[in-house]
């Protein structure tokens, strides 16, 4: 595809611009709020909340007969909030575990919403048309006024996160300490959950119930790999969410038969996969390399040490020994020849003319140092 053409369309094509702006907004909001959810081990709460919003949307329509985004979103937020309260009460008063309660809330609320929705759809009232796009999301049907509502709600949610930054940080990492400082953790919990519900409701119209839960979990999971600082993580998660939203919108507009919601989810899943693999310090690739190097170093150290211990029996720390002797000291161990060659390249051992191996001056010094360190302070071993 032509990049310039895409950029041009992004600015001037009404549909694409609206969809991209909407998807970007939902990505930013869900990324930021999802980070807190993830740190508080509530990743699947988003899943439950997004399903629980459905009856709220339909009830709001039934009561007001209005389809203004703000009214429907208010209904959704109320339902999500009720669901959270019900969940907390179940967890407090019964022995049911969190996963059961989440599954119950998500399926029963959704079923109730579905019952209401089908009930409404059979009423002789044409105004209900289009309510069902909250189920699966239809980004292509987003209108400018939808996007304005989304942006306004998202902006409020982000401002609230900024205003309560310090408090939310306490809530996420050390609620007991926060409570001892005099903050009411219950109130903060309710505020943060409400904000999460808002972020989810923003996205429902665009990507639908099922895929919205991915937008809460995935940006945060990707961002978590790159930083241990909350601020960096929240900003990164928002950026990933926005990137996925906009590029999903662009991709689905350029490739035929590619619905926006699933495309956005696949883009964010790709970002997660990339982050899992390549993220500095936590990434699987670097961790694998590190493990490989550690293993190599352990083997080299073992051979150096064996050579040193053998040589010490001869009053000469550089007395040569054959590879067979080394092998005999480590029965069943493979790769000694390779390790010896690597050591030779580093100038720590040398190969005598008769094929035996001896330590160089530097090798002897290092081996001696190791052994002395070990006997002085065995507790250091694990940390080096």
């Amino acid at each position, binding site marked *: 595809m032509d990049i310039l053409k895409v950029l041009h369309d992004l600015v001037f094509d009404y549909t694409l611009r609206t969809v991209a702006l909407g998807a970007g907004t939902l990505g930013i909001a869900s990324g930021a709020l999802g980070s807190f959810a993830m740190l508080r081990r509530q990743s*699947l709460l988003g899943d439950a909340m997004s399903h629980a919003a459905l009856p709220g949307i339909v009830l709001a329509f039934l009561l007001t007969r209005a389809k203004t985004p703000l009214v429907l979103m208010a209904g959704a937020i109320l339902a999500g909030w009720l669901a959270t309260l019900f969940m907390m009460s179940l967890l407090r008063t019964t*022995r049911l575990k969190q996963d059961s309660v989440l599954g119950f809330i998500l*399926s029963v*609320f959704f*079923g109730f919403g579905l019952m209401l929705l089908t009930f409404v759809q059979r009423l002789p009232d044409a105004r209900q048309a289009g309510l069902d796009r909250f189920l699966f999301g239809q980004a292509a049907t987003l209108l400018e006024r939808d996007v304005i509502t989304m942006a306004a709600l998202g902006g409020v949610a982000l401002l609230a996160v900024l205003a309560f930054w310090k408090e939310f940080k306490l809530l996420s990492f050390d609620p007991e300490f926060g409570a001892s400082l005099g903050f009411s953790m219950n109130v903060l919990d309710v505020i943060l959950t409400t904000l999460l519900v808002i972020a989810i409701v923003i996205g429902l119209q665009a990507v639908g119930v099922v895929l919205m839960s991915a937008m809460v979990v995935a940006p945060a999971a990707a961002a978590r790999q790159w930083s241990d600082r909350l601020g960096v993580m929240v900003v990164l998660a928002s950026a990933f969410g926005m990137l996925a939203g906009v590029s999903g919108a662009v991709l689905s507009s350029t490739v035929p038969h590619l619905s926006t919601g699933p495309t956005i989810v696949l883009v964010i*899943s790709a970002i997660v996969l990339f982050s899992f693999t390549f993220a500095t310090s936590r990434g699987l690739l670097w961790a694998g390399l590190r493990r490989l190097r550690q293993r190599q170093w352990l083997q080299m150290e073992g051979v150096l040490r064996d050579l040193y211990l053998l040589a010490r029996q001869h009053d000469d720390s550089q007395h040569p020994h054959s590879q067979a002797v080394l092998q005999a000291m480590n029965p069943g161990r493979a790769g000694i020849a390779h390790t010896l060659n690597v050591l030779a390249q580093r100038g720590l051992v040398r190969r005598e003319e008769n094929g035996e191996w001896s330590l160089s001056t530097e090798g002897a010094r290092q081996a001696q140092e190791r052994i002395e360190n070990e006997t002085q302070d065995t507790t250091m071993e694990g940390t080096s």
Partner: protein
Amino acid sequence: MSPAQVEIQLIAAITAAACALPGVFLILRRMAMMSDAISHTVLLGIVVGFFITKDLTSPYLVLGAALTGVLTVSLVELVHRTRLVREDAAVGLVFPALFSIAVLLISRYAGDVHLDTDAVLLGELAFAPFNRFAPFGSDIGPIALYLMGGILLINLFFISLFYKELKLATFDAGLAASLGFAPWLIHYGLMALVSITAVGAFDTVGSVLVVALMVAPPMSAYLLTDRLSRMIALSVAIGVVNAILGYWLAHLLDASIAGSMASMAGITFGVIYLLAPERGLVALARRRARQRWEFAMTMLAIHLFNHEGLPEASQENREEHLSQEVRWAPDFAARVVSRTVEQGWVQRQEGSLNLTELGRQRAKQAIAG
């Protein structure tokens, strides 16, 4: 009732029973959300199976779906084992991705086939009687009835055959492993059951509501009993009742049957949550109230016992004195006193209170602990 109505209720009841069986173990093994994940990802198995067989009624689709269910579980475990994210986040990452792939495959390559996302997510039980099962030309009922009946039998067979193993692996996985059972085999077997059940059921009730059928009845049963066998029986019974009541609710409102069944499951759970004999909210509140009275009565008995036979007793055992001494509100104090009198712990004599032999015993018991 028309024959179609009977058939729909029969299918609903059998589906509910088939879902409740593996659901019990999901609840006990803290894996309820796995049913949500699996019920979505089996769609991928069906789509891929369809591309291979080109036939939507092929039994291989069920096999494909079961495999995707197991694949989902192993992917979640793989992601979790990297220790980069917690298990719940791993679930939330894996299933939307697989589900998205399935949805995109359908919309891109199977747009003209009867395999649309709405039907899969929501299901339509009302249409189930239209698909007849007619081997050798004789109509013997709807296909869904035989499909779900078969799945119910498979579930029953697996659970009764491996009842002991499932029980042990659920409540004490360590012991099960040390005795030589393979907990992972049981685990994956169970996940395969969940997948097969989800595939069979989502045709009729839709994938989200499969979760309601799997989770809600066992949760209700869990509030009623501590015995596994009873929990299984109760779950099946509650599921069947929900299905039938849900059907009539839908009939009344002219709404989605699956949605009404899930709503009914919610209502049943709500009633049980409120009224369960030992764990219900009402029982909880009554137990707390009773404990409060018992505590107060024992306090009074101890107070009187401590001062019995001492010079200050005539002062300490007066009813008015209680509100100062133990800081009870006067009317509360009066009610505690009248309760102790009723129970025969205390006798009133001209405004002062004296312990009976029974009251003295109670006080001594409480002090001795």
